[in-house]
């Protein structure tokens, strides 16, 4: 089949519905790119196609990603491999990771369970750090729900945990 515009082989086939009328177009790659604004790259590997698709729809571009100053990984590189580069990335990409974690872990975003007994980097025992994280989250929720009685209780618990 020949292209509707020129004499080359048509490899792009479009079906448009306009005002209830079906219009079929058969174009070559160049004409499709020029007239319809469809960038068609032939022989694009499937993983590249998918990556581009994910990039476009997540509103992220490869170019805009700044890397982790410790391991150098960018968000785009993480999306390609599915593996993070170092512990720091969880903090660095926290905002972008959250929807992903929600999907992977049945809507959960905070750790529950075993905690190492040794102190973390801040010198505060890990167990208390975990409690604090949870209490602060609960406090934010209580405030949002305008449950001030509960919020006050949580505030006191947080103070106690911070000084305790």
């Amino acid at each position, binding site marked *: 089949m020949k292209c509707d515009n020129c004499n080359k082989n048509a490899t792009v086939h479009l079906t448009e519905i306009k005002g209830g009328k079906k219009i079929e177009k058969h174009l070559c790659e160049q004409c499709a790119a020029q007239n319809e604004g469809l960038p068609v790259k032939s022989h694009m590997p499937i993983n590249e196609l998918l990556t581009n698709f994910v990039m476009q729809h997540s509103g992220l571009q490869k170019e805009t990603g700044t890397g982790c100053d410790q391991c150098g990984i960018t968000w785009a590189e993480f999306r390609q491999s599915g593996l993070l580069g170092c512990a720091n990335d969880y903090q660095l990409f926290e905002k972008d990771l959250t929807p992903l974690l929600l999907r992977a872990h049945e809507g959960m975003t905070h750790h529950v369970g*075993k905690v190492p007994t040794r102190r973390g980097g801040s010198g505060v025992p890990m167990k208390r750090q975990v409690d*604090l994280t949870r209490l602060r989250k609960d406090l934010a929720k209580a405030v949002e729900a305008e449950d001030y009685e509960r919020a006050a209780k949580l505030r006191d618990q947080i103070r106690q945990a911070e000084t305790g």
Partner: protein
Amino acid sequence: MKMKLSDLTNHAGEWLRGSGPMSEIVISSRIRLARNVTGFPFLTRCTRHQRQALEQKVRETILAADLSSQVLYVDLENAPDMDRQLLVERHLISKPHAGAEGARGVAIAENETLSVMVNEEDHLRIQCLRSGLQLEEAWEQINKVDDKLEAALDWSFHPRFGYLTACPTNVGTGIRVSVMLHLPALKLTGEIEKLFRAAKDMKLAVRGLYGEGTEATGDFYQISNQTTLGKSEDDIISDFKHAIVPKIIEWEQHARRTLRDDRTVQLDDKVGRALGILRSARLIASEETLLLLSHLRMGVHLNRVKDIDLRTINELFLLTQPAHLQRIQGRKLEGDVRRAVRADYIRQRLGVA
């Protein structure tokens, strides 16, 4: 006493003894923990030098940690292909760990119920593997090992995210609880779809005999949790023990009873054919072996075959795999020679009718 890899070959590991609770259906219970050490990037971002330093640090810690009276450490970077394959067949390392490159290893202890992979996807992958339904026992064991290693290694941990892992799908507890189930009757009666539907509803993964990306050969299905964040280890294990596994066992038992009581001829035909081929074949591939052993195993459990025990069949599942067969024979075997040796070995173990 120093253990050698060759000491492992001639018998099945504890987890295949067929001795644990519900072992006619639950082959094994496995728990693994993913852990990373602070001060090193995750493995995909490690330089060759960092990778070596990490392997050395973790190896020395494991060997000094008094995990068990006997610990076998295998340097997988320099191990022969056949040894790595052998460890995969025994479920002591993962397929990707066997095929990877660079400094990495595995520590094996406690009669093969414990293995610690070093430099897999995470710095450490600790696993406990036990016969039958023994999830709480496996958790108790692995929890102690984790404590002992943590005394010498700083785990990457974040108050909100929990134990940090290379892949965010493992973050939190870093736990994967799996049970390996033998479900031939559900497969034969066409009810296996129930399992897939239930697993999907409960956010569980269903895999084959050798984990991720493998087919359910020989009617073995491995069920494991996918959620690792926001749910405690105890809750995950309790769900398996009280809700998930008993339900599947009930379905399989019901399907086995239906076959025995209402479709006796069809059942005896399947089992008889399996035994007939296994006792007569002169050339047999490992895939066919798994399928026939699966039917035979069900026949033994339902008392349709009386002169073979479950333990022999369990051992055959393992010892007829390529690397084991070659190790037992002490030579490299390929193609028809391997299939012939396998058929001979099976005939010898099952006895001639």
